[in-house]
């Protein structure tokens, strides 16, 4: 479901849903003739993390707050890095190894701003957007990931 982002024309796509994620659509959302540099990041589910095999991940979110935060971070990225356009899609529900869980795209006049924006946006998404992952292990075990305190990163 696309978030209403009418208020900032540079934020061209914000989605958070259980549909398969199409990275090409996220890249296409930032295509513009005024941009020379376009960066797309795609986060995919690894089949092994360290020595631990993952069969799948499951994502849950506080959806209204998460969509608002994603849109707010996109707008902040556009301001900070002078972007022409910025877009983000994040999955909910079960994501299998090899599939994309998140994609962000940023376009700018020059490549440095586009790289810096996409990397900054991924860091902020992982730090502040209310989305959680649950690891499903091959033995049937499940564990929600709550690595770092989010209270300090609050509003």
């Amino acid at each position, binding site marked *: 479901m696309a978030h209403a982002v009418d208020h900032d024309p540079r934020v061209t796509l914000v989605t958070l849903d259980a549909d398969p994620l199409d990275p090409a659509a996220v890249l296409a959302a930032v295509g513009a003739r005024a941009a020379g540099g376009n960066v797309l990041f795609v986060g995919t589910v690894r089949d092994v993390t360290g020595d631990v095999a993952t069969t799948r991940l499951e994502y849950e979110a506080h959806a209204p707050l998460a969509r608002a935060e994603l849109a707010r971070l996109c707008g902040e990225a556009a301001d900070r890095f002078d972007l022409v356009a910025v877009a983000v899609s994040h999955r909910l529900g079960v994501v299998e190894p090899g599939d994309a*869980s998140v994609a962000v795209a940023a376009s700018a006049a020059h490549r440095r701003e586009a790289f810096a924006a996409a990397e900054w946006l991924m860091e902020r998404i992982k730090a502040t957007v209310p989305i*959680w*992952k649950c690891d499903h292990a091959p033995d049937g075990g499940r564990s929600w990931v*709550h690595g770092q305190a989010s209270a300090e990163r609050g509003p």
Partner: protein
Amino acid sequence: MPLPHVPPTAGSLDVALFAGMAEAAGRRRVTLAWSGGTVADLRRRLAAACPEIAPLLERSAVARGDRYATDGEPIAAGDDVALIPPVSGG
């Protein structure tokens, strides 16, 4: 003289839980009797009412509607409130 009683107009507050916090509590929301108070008051009430979420609660933010709320912010009965434990999206 009778003891003061909770006024009948005192409302309640539904607090949404997510992920490992919902799993620890065995439910996706906690309902408290609530006649008003700050986010900090809410944290204390929840820790007492639901000790199984207390460890994650200390590391959680509080959201009202689609915004994060600061500890001094007032919360009214009926507000749309959620606990946001450390996030792990991406």
